[in-house]
C-alpha cells in the first residue's frame, strides 16, 4: 500500500467512524451549494433570454414620403457606409402594405384604413460586433441624422434593459457566491476540526513517532476535499431533479453546461480542501502538545 492507498485507508476509516458527522456535513454543504446552483440556473436562463433579445437587433429606418429612386439610392449608399452595418434591405411602400395585410388578415379593418399609409423603409442588419444594445443604438443614432430619414425604430431599449437585469443578477450571484463560499469553508472547517478533536490521541501518538504532513495533515485535507466534492455531486443531482420536475410544467429552468457543472464540482472540492486546510493550520497548538 503506497501513500495514496494509505490516504484512502485513513479517509475510509474517518468516514466510517464519523458517519453521522460526515453525513450532517455533506447535507449542510449540499443545501448551501444548491442555493448557488439554482441561482446559476436562473442566471443561465436570463442570459439565454438576453441572447435571444440581442438576436432581434434589426433596425427599421423609415423614409420620407415622395422620394425619388436616386434619393433612395443615395440614402442606401450612406447607410452602407455607417460603422457596424452588415447589410441593408429596402422595403417599398407596396411591400410594407402587403406584409401588413398578411399580418392583419382582417379585410374589414384594412378597408377602414383606406389607402396605404405605410412608408418605405430600410431594414439594417448590424455586423456581429454591433449585435448588442449599445451597437444597435449607435447605428440608429447615426441613421437618424441622415437625410430622407423620417423615423428609426429598434428593439435596443429592451435589450439594454434585459442586459441591465442580467448584469444585476450576475452581481447578486457574485455576492451570493462569496457568502456561500464562506459558508462551505465554515462547514468543512468545523467538520475537520471536530474530526481532529475526536482523534487527538492518535495525532499525539503519530507526532511523537515523528509522523509528518502525510500522517497529521493530509488525511484531513483529503477528507475536506472528498466531502465537499460529494456534496457538490449531490447538489448537481438535486438540481437536475428540480430541473426535470419543473420541465414537466410550464416553467423552464435551464441546466448549466456540463463544463460549468464540472467546474462547479471542482470548485466545491477545492473549497473543501481550503476549508480543511484553514482548520488544520489554525488548530490551537496546545491541542497538539
Amino acid at each position: 500500500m503506497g501513500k495514496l492507498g494509505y490516504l484512502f485507508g485513513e479517509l475510509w476509516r474517518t468516514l466510517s467512524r464519523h458517519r453521522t458527522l460526515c453525513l450532517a456535513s455533506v447535507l449542510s454543504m449540499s443545501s448551501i451549494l444548491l442555493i448557488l446552483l439554482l441561482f446559476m440556473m436562473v442566471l443561465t436562463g436570463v442570459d439565454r433570454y438576453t441572447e435571444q433579445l440581442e438576436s432581434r437587433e434589426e433596425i427599421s429606418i423609415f423614409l420620407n414620403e415622395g422620394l425619388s429612386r436616386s434619393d433612395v439610392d443615395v440614402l442606401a449608399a450612406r447607410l452602407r457606409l455607417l460603422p457596424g452595418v452588415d447589410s441593408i434591405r429596402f422595403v417599398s411602400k407596396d411591400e410594407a402594405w402587403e406584409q401588413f395585410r398578411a399580418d392583419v388578415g382582417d379585410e374589414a379593418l384594412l378597408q377602414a384604413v383606406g389607402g396605404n399609409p405605410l412608408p418605405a423603409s430600410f431594414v439594417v442588419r448590424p455586423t456581429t460586433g454591433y449585435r448588442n444594445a449599445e451597437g444597435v443604438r449607435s447605428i440608429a443614432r447615426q441613421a437618424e441624422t441622415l437625410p430622407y430619414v423620417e423615423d428609426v425604430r429598434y428593439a435596443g431599449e429592451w435589450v439594454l434593459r434585459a442586459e441591465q437585469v442580467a448584469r444585476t443578477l450576475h452581481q447578486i450571484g457574485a455576492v451570493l457566491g462569496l457568502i456561500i463560499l464562506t459558508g462551505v469553508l465554515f462547514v468543512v472547517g468545523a467538520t475537520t476540526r471536530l474530526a481532529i478533536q475526536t482523534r487527538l490521541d492518535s495525532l499525539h501518538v503519530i507526532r511523537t513517532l515523528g509522523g509528518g504532513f502525510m500522517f497529521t495533515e493530509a488525511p484531513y485535507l483529503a477528507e475536506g476535499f472528498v466531502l465537499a466534492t460529494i456534496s457538490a455531486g449531490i447538489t448537481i443531482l438535486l438540481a437536475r431533479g428540480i430541473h426535470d420536475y419543473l420541465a414537466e410544467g410550464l416553467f423552464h429552468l435551464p441546466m448549466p453546461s456540463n463544463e460549468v457543472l464540472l467546474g462547479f464540482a471542482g470548485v466545491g472540492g477545492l473549497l473543501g480542501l481550503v476549508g480543511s486546510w484553514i482548520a488544520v493550520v489554525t488548530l490551537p497548538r496546545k491541542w497538539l502538545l
Partner: protein
Amino acid sequence: MALIRLERVTKYYKNRLALSDVTLSFEPSEWVYVTGPSGAGKSTLLKLVSLAERPTRGRVEAERGMRRAIGMLGQEFRLLHDRNVYENIALGCRISGVWDKEEIAERVAPLLDEMGLRGMEGIYPGELSAGEKQRVALARALVRHPRVLIADEPTGNLDPTAAAQIFSLMRQYRDRETMVLVATHAEDWTQRHPGRVIRLEQGVVRSDLASPVPEGKA
C-alpha cells in the same frame, strides 16, 4: 564517531530550567541508563537526544537523517486504538518512509515472532494485556530498524515478568548495533542489565559512569 553528541546544552521551558550545560556523547551499541529523581531532567534529555526538541543553548549534533533512525518507547504504550497489532507496527515503518507493502511485511513478520506476538496481528490494543501492548510498542519502534532506541520508563506500567521480558528484548537489539537509552526510576535494572549510567539531578549531570561490565558481555 559518536551517533549523537550534546555540546553544552541548556534547555529552558519558559522560565524553568530543565537541563543545564550538559555535554554528553553516545556511541553505537551503547546501553545507557538515565536515572535521577522526578524533575531531574531525564525526559528533557531524552527529547533532545531524540531530536524532538531543540536546546535553548548549546548544540545537539547528529548525522543527517538520524531523526528517522530513532525509535521511541514510552511508559504509556501510545498505541492507536483503531488499528490492530499489525497496523500499529506497520505505522512505524510508514513514518520512517517505508511504503512498500511487501517490505513492510518483511520487516513486521520477524518482529511478531521475536516479540511473541505471532497470531495476534488482527487483535486491537483494547484486547491486549499491558505487557503485550508494550511489546507491540517496542516492535513499532524496532520496525524502523533504529540506530537509536530511546525508552522513557518503559517498564513503569508493567508487572515484573513483563518488565523483564521488555528489557531482555531491548538487550537483544543493543547487541545488533542499536544504541539503547533508557530513562528509569528503578535503579535495580542497572544492576540486572549493567550499562553506562548517567545520573541527573536538578538538570545537571551528577555522574556519568561507564558500564562496570565490558561491552558485549552484559
